């Protein structure tokens, strides 16, 4: 009512000072919003890169495989497991994989390789495998002794599309596995480190080579959305009814990656804290100046019967009004910037490599968090910063305040 009216008009009195305070809070709001949107955006983007393009959100393995991978720890009836997965809510696709290691030779050159058996159709649906083929083509749908090489590996072996590659490995039955394949394409997965050893075979070819018919080491599952993956994993676990097969979320099977991402998010909290501090100092400074300047006025208000609490509220309200204006304007600014950056992204001055994937451009994301967290922070900061000056105003001794000439 009355307090509000006075506070509202007071806040437009010192135009320059109010503008400055509003700009400080607006800047703080927008910066906080952009930094959260950026952090969340990068987080989502990096996770998406890893999950959607490589690992999947959830993986199924034979119990113990993650701790100590072995050729013999296999998931045996993936052909019945797979369709069962599709009945679980939010599951979008799944892809079986077989892993082993061996030696590959092209002409004179040889190199140790990681053999990855993939189902081309499923792998494309699940992790966009076809998009990673940068030269040549992907597998024929039927197994036909074809191989795709990681770009780094192709370089090491000086191999080109059309060459033949000999692979030597060990079969699950203990025999020497040994076969000849034609290189039909090169793969750039985004994981440059992995590409130096990756050799892809059609799943059926790989099973034959390693004597693991109908068996796989891993089923990668992609899910709709990144939230509450635990619940999906638990639902999968109950659906498949196989205690020896374990469903793990990316947070579990890519633990170190997850920890690194979390650490990165802590960084944005520190940023937020610094912003809050700057805003607090700015607000405190202007409100203190204002209160000192208006001592006489508060003295008159007190003298004619205004209660100390009313004067206190008047000061806090004035700051809150400025904070609300700042937030509204800040939201507009932040929205425009966040929207622009979510489309164009920000080119990083130096590209960084995270778990083997190189990032040279990151994007913001527009979410509710990047608005309500700064809003709560700014309002709280403004209120807290105005408490001491408000108390000073409420305690003005009218007789003294009006005497100072």
């Amino acid at each position, binding site marked *: 009512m009355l307090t509000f009216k006075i506070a509202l008009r007071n806040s437009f009195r010192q135009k320059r000072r109010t503008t400055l305070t509003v700009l400080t809070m607006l800047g703080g709001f927008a910066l906080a919003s952009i930094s959260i949107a950026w952090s969340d955006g990068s987080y989502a983007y990096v996770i998406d890169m890893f999950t959607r393009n490589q690992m999947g959100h959830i993986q199924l393995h034979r119990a113990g495989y993650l701790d100590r991978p072995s050729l013999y720890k296999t998931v045996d009836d993936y052909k019945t497991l797979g369709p069962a997965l599709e009945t679980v809510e939010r599951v979008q696709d799944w892809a079986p994989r077989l892993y082993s290691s061996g030696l590959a030779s092209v002409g004179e050159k040889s190199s140790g390789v990681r053999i990855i058996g993939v189902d081309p159709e499923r792998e494309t649906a699940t992790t966009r495998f076809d998009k990673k083929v940068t030269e040549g083509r992907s597998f024929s749908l039927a197994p036909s002794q074809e191989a795709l090489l990681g770009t780094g590996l192709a370089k090491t072996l000086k191999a080109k599309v059309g060459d033949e590659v000999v692979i030597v490995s060990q079969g699950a039955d203990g025999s020497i596995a040994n076969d000849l394949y034609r290189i039909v394409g090169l793969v750039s997965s985004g994981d440059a480190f992995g590409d130096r050893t990756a050799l892809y075979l059609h799943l059926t070819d790989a099973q034959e080579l390693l004597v693991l018919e109908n068996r796989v080491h891993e089923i990668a599952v992609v899910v709709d959305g990144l939230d509450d993956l635990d619940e999906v994993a638990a639902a999968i676990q109950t659906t498949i009814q196989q205690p020896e097969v374990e469903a793990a979320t990316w947070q579990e099977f890519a633990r170190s990656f997850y920890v690194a991402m979390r650490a990165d998010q802590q960084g944005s909290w520190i940023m937020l804290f610094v912003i809050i501090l700057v805003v607090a100092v700015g607000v405190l400074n202007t409100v203190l100046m204002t209160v000192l300047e208006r001592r*006489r006025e508060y003295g*008159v*208000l007190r003298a004619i019967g*205004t209660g100390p609490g009313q004067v206190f509220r008047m000061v806090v309200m004035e700051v809150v009004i400025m904070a609300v204006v700042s937030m509204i304007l800040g939201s507009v600014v932040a929205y425009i910037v966040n929207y622009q950056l979510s489309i164009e992204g920000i080119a990083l001055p130096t590209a960084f490599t995270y778990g083997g994937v190189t990032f040279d451009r990151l994007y913001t994301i527009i979410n509710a968090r990047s608005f309500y967290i700064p809003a709560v922070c700014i309002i709280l900061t403004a209120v807290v910063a105005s408490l001491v000056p408000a108390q000073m105003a409420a305690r003005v001794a009218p007789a003294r305040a009006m005497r100072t000439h």
Partner: protein
Amino acid sequence: MNADNDHKVIIAEGVTKEYSDNGLPVMALRGIDLTIEQGEFAAIVGPSGSGKTTFLNVVSGLDSITEGSVRLDGKLLSTMSGRELSDYRRDRIGFIFQAYNLIPVLTVEENVEYIMLLQGIDKKERHRRVRDLLAQLGLDGMADRLPSRLSGGQQQRVAVARAIVSRPALVLADEPTANLDSKTALDLIDMMRRLNEESGVTFVFSTHDSMIMARARRLIVLKDGRIDRDEAQA
């Protein structure tokens, strides 16, 4: 509280006020005994530093006293809490100051209305009183102006309106005419006197100006924190 006190607005007994100025004691008031009756129109005069402002401040509870006692409407000031004092000033005392009187962000009407809003008087009554009073004080047409758009004399008239609108028992004014030219000052004092005569509001004001003193019906002369003379005038 006895019936005798009913028409005594202020009773000051042996009021002493000591300030400390960087550790040195300053005696602003040295034993003031004074009674102001309902309906008086009294001027407090005296040289600069004689204690006029201090006296007005201590009798309204804006400042504490060192010794003695002050009763307002028979009530001992020293027994009132801060909140009670604040409410008492709101309901029973009107103030007019030398300068910085009005709330700069409120219009004339809102300034006059302010105390009634604090008192919770309903809108219709507030507007009726404000309208009547502004007309009576020659301020019609100024209701929506901000104080900065008024002359000094007009501002002081608004201050008078604000001081009496809530029908206080007592109006205290510390040099209300000091910032005005002599013609405007006399107009203001005449107006205060008219209100005193017509509505019976008690006025106690301080001044340096002999023309203004001449308009008072009682002259209280302070000197070095003591009452030097206290006489009635025609």
